[in-house]
């Protein structure tokens, strides 16, 4: 009884923007199945009213003042850009709707 199906793995790959080929998908699906079964062990822990911990240390309220700090120059900002035009990042045509 597998913990995760190949279809689900293909779906995860799409969600994560990973264009995997069929072989890779097969290989990863098998491995993920094993891993997910193993990590599911956490469900064995009785935890009715145990609060989840998202931050190990009890720090709260860390702020910075609303004061301007130096920005990068546009050259620095665009220095790693695979493509740039008119001081903007040039990206291929976007299919999805703007949120």
């Amino acid at each position, binding site marked *: 009884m597998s913990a*995760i199906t190949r279809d*689900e*793995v293909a779906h*995860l*790959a*799409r*969600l*994560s*923007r*990973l*264009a*995997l*080929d069929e072989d*890779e998908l097969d290989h*990863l699906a098998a*491995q*993920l199945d*094993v*891993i*997910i079964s*193993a*990590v*599911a*062990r*956490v*469900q*064995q*822990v009785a*935890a009715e009213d*145990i*609060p*989840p*911990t*998202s*931050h*190990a*240390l009890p*720090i709260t309220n*860390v702020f*910075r003042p609303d004061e301007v700090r130096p920005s*990068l120059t546009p050259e*620095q*900002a665009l*220095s*790693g*850009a*695979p*493509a740039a035009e008119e001081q903007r*990042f040039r*990206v*291929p*045509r*976007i*299919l*999805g709707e703007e949120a």
Partner: protein
Amino acid sequence: MSGELTRKSAAELAELMAAGQVSAVEVTQAHLDRIAEVDGRIGAFLHVDAEVALAQARAVDSRRAAGEELGPLAGVPIAHKDVFTTVDMPTTAGSKILEGWRPPYDATVTARLRAAGLVILGKTNLDEFAMGSSTENSAYGPTRNPWDLERVPGGSSGGSSAAVASYQAPLATGTDTGGSIRQPAAVTGIVGTKPTYGGSSRYGLIAFASSLDTPGPFGRTVLDAALLHEAFSGHDPMDSTSIDRPVPPVVEAARRADVAGLRIGVVKELGGEGYQPGVLARFNEAVELLESLGAKVAEVSCPHFTYALPAYYLIAPSECSSNLARFDAMRYGLRVGDDGTRSAEEVMALTRAQGFGPEVKRRIMLGTYALSSGYYDAYYGKAQQVRTLIIRDFEAAFEQVDVLVSPTTPTTAFPLGDRVDDPMAMYLADLATIPSNLAGTPAISVPCGLADEDDLPVGLQVMAPVLADDRVYRVGAAVERALTDRWGGPLLSKAPAL
């Protein structure tokens, strides 16, 4: 002289330079020579920049000549894990997706190394995006263990650990998310510390798991590690999770090195089945040694530690699946498949498929799964609850004892290629180190001998409560002193010559 210089500790080098007996340039050159001599076989460095390093060294010499007051490590060379941004050297995180990337800003840790006058020799190899326990996941080839070139140096900070263990640098930086400083230190026979989470800044540290990643020091001695720990630690307003308190007095503790009256707890769950007999043997001897030094030893149970590994392999991948989403070929890094007909979405997916290695892909998908609606509660949510229980286990334990000890990792260095196709087997390397990452508590690994089976190094792990980093240095230093006495020299001197 250069051969001798590379054998010296950071503290010794600093003293020699302060006394004017040797210049920073000579020290740096000696280490550059050593790199040229051995790194072809070890592969610790991804990038070495002799010009930049020598320029830094010259600057230190000038400042000293001008009578400036310099820090305790000024002029000492250091190897810097290639997961911290540096403006004067590429930063790749061991990944093809960032090949050749030149960051426009320095990490805070990088800036503090520079401010301390440390000379950055180059960037060291790592498992891609710090994910791994062997450095075999690097996109640029593995690093080899100086003790046995057919074995792994541990990971993810394997390059840094190997560099220090092979005398290419007296100090190195690492990051520890699930054991990635302590485990390499253990299997290469040197000292490595994971400070209290938040004790050093993550600004400029390419993120793997944000709530777990912790920068830390490598050294061949406990004192060296402490000196480096102090040099780059402390609050950073650019990191909201950094602790706004003074750095614990780790150098003082390393010098103090006494354990009389200290209560030491041996963690029952971190030993036994799954641990190599030779590792357990050296560990048990180290515990006896501590007792003979005046410590009170007792067994302590931390029952939820057995769930630490699965909890970690849910939390870390979840955070990393989100942290690595930014690598999408739009603003920096690799771009694949942009032939003018493909959409942004396609280019993203092709780039990520090509730019990320298998372990990274596994963890991204695992994390995406664990956070998906319908699965969140049973996986990520549950793991966060386990995390609470582990924190409570530590708190309960530390009411009975001052520090906890365990073997750092279940086995000695395994052969290259042994676990690469078996993720679960690879993950087991982190069994003993993961609990401290989940709780944010500090921990150190110090060499405690060679395993009988294979004559390979074994590490002793010492764990302390949050912000009690000095305690782990104190105990580590005491063990180091006693064992070095017993061995007639540091463990590393038993390593085969390269």
